[in-house]
């Protein structure tokens, strides 16, 4: 008995050291990134482990003026609009698939959810050709359309799974009282789906904020480039002024980290529902 207790204690010590070491491996690079955003170039190339001598907020101002303000605006615009479009279109589709009789219902749900299987890279070449001929290449609309179209399957999938489990009696009661489907959807079903709607909003925001492939291929001007692409051009345009790049990275990372900590509960739910069903 004492032997297992001793072994157990050793195991626990090892486990805790491992878990805490991993915390350092995760946190330290991020902390280093934040600290480097406050250093001067000389400090950065001097001792990488040193703390900044003073908080150089100029790096942030510099990054902001060198395009980050434009990238941020573009990111916010694309993220907000594509989130609204994706979540509403997906919620309508999910309602249609779970509550409304329609011709070819099974085929429709197969087409919408089948989109989950398709990799965006596969469609890249034809999409470039299509967007060029539509005159949408290098516009805000290209990203809005692509982020919406490619995320509808996943978002619909999540909302549909939630709606299936909702009691139908409430809808039916509303219809008996003379409410039409449109009113039922807005007044009854959508409010009941609040938790999953919040999860899908958060997941979409994270996706749109961080997406790189489409953003890189479909935008090139400063005013339409989003943060992920903007950061790489900040890097290539300004050579070795690394502290400014670090400041830009912090500006890009901060909103999503805050969003994650503020909405963890919904977030975890969305992720586990998304993969578990």
């Amino acid at each position: 008995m004492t032997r297992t207790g001793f072994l157990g204690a050793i195991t626990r010590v090892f486990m805790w050291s491992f878990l805490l070491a991993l915390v350092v491996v995760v946190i330290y690079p991020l902390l280093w990134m934040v600290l480097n955003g406050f250093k001067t170039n000389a400090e950065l190339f001097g001792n990488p482990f040193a703390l900044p001598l003073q908080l150089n907020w100029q790096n942030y101002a510099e990054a902001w003026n060198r395009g980050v303000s434009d990238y941020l605006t573009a990111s916010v615009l694309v993220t907000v609009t594509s989130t609204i479009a994706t979540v509403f279109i997906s919620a309508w589709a999910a309602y249609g698939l779970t509550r409304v009789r329609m011709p070819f219902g099974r085929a429709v749900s197969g087409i919408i959810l089948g989109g989950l299987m398709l990799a965006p890279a596969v469609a890249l070449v034809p999409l470039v050709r299509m967007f060029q001929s539509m005159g949408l290449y290098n516009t805000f609309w290209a990203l809005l359309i692509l982020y919406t179209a490619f995320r509808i399957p996943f978002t619909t999938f999540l909302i549909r799974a939630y709606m299936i489990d909702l009691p139908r009696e409430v809808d039916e009661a509303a219809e008996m009282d003379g409410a039409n489907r449109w009113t039922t959807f807005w007044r009854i079903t959508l409010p009941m789906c609040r938790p999953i709607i919040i999860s899908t909003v958060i997941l979409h925001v994270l996706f749109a904020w961080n997406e790189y492939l489409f953003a890189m291929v479909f935008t090139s001007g400063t005013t339409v480039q989003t943060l992920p692409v903007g950061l790489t051009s900040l890097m290539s345009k300004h050579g070795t002024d690394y502290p400014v790049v670090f400041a830009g990275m912090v500006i890009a990372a901060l909103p999503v980290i805050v969003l994650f900590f503020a909405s963890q509960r919904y977030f975890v739910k969305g992720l586990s529902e998304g993969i578990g069903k």
Partner: protein
Amino acid sequence: MSGQQTTPPSEVTSGAGFRLPPTVTEAITTPAKPGRRSTGRGARSRAARLAGLAWVVPALVLLGVFVYLPLVQNIAFSTQEWDIYSGISEFVGLKNYEKLLQDPVFWSSLSNNLLYAALSIVFQVGGALVLAAMIESLRSIRWRKALRAIYFVPSAISLTVAGLLFYFIYEPNLGLLNNLLDALGLDALAQPWLGQESTAMVAIIAMSQWQGFGYSTLLFAVAIQRIPSELYEAASLDGIGPVRRFLHVTVPLVREMTGLMVIVTVSGAFQVFNEVMVMTSGGPNNSTQVLATWLYRSGFVRNDFGYAAAIATVIFVVTLLIAVAQLWYTRRKKVDF
């Protein structure tokens, strides 16, 4: 095939550009009109069923035009040689695919994707499962929550930020890694991690494990939480230690999640793009090219769009096979407690 290549660009415009807005607005407004239902009985139900389609029309149109149509077009384009600047395309049959088979960079890209998949299974599936079991075995709920959240933070930031960050960590002069090795007296191991063929790919994959392990750990933790605690208590009472509890209770009962994670991880590994572009752009000497970056380079840098489309077809086939495996897997019997 020949009809496909002679399609003037303007037709695509009228096809997709003008049709979209009216259908979207129609879908929004149609269900709001209750008057549509007040016709005769047979006609009424048929009309009602047709009106039901309005709910899914926006999703169908967007998916049809921007997801499925390009997919079909891609296969057509892969049989053409197309110059994006002159707009001239010419049917060449399977020539792009023949070129693919003889292209050493295509094969090294494919093997980089496979390496990516293999290492991700080890760390992001196997490692994450062990880690999740460790976290969930802690007595303090606070610590469990805190660790899950901290480990997840790299997954919340974008791959671009993580990639740039590790670009600097691997940087030979100011980077953390070489300076850390120096400080530990291991300066013999210091090297230009991303600048040489022998280490560049592994360095990129290591970054992506750092970025992604918290995500799979979180999902495994959720799966472990669903296991009834009586099972663990019974095992403890029988004198079964933590390692055997993990092997005989946890592993079998989260196997559904494990299977899904393997599939999702492998599928993701064949779509890798962002981290490679940010950290090396496929260099040095194409040693870190993966299928998606080689597609990009072939098309958008070397102006060989037909060839790029052929690479895209390969990605399509691989990811489709993986998706079919996933469907088959999830349709099998679920784990019962």
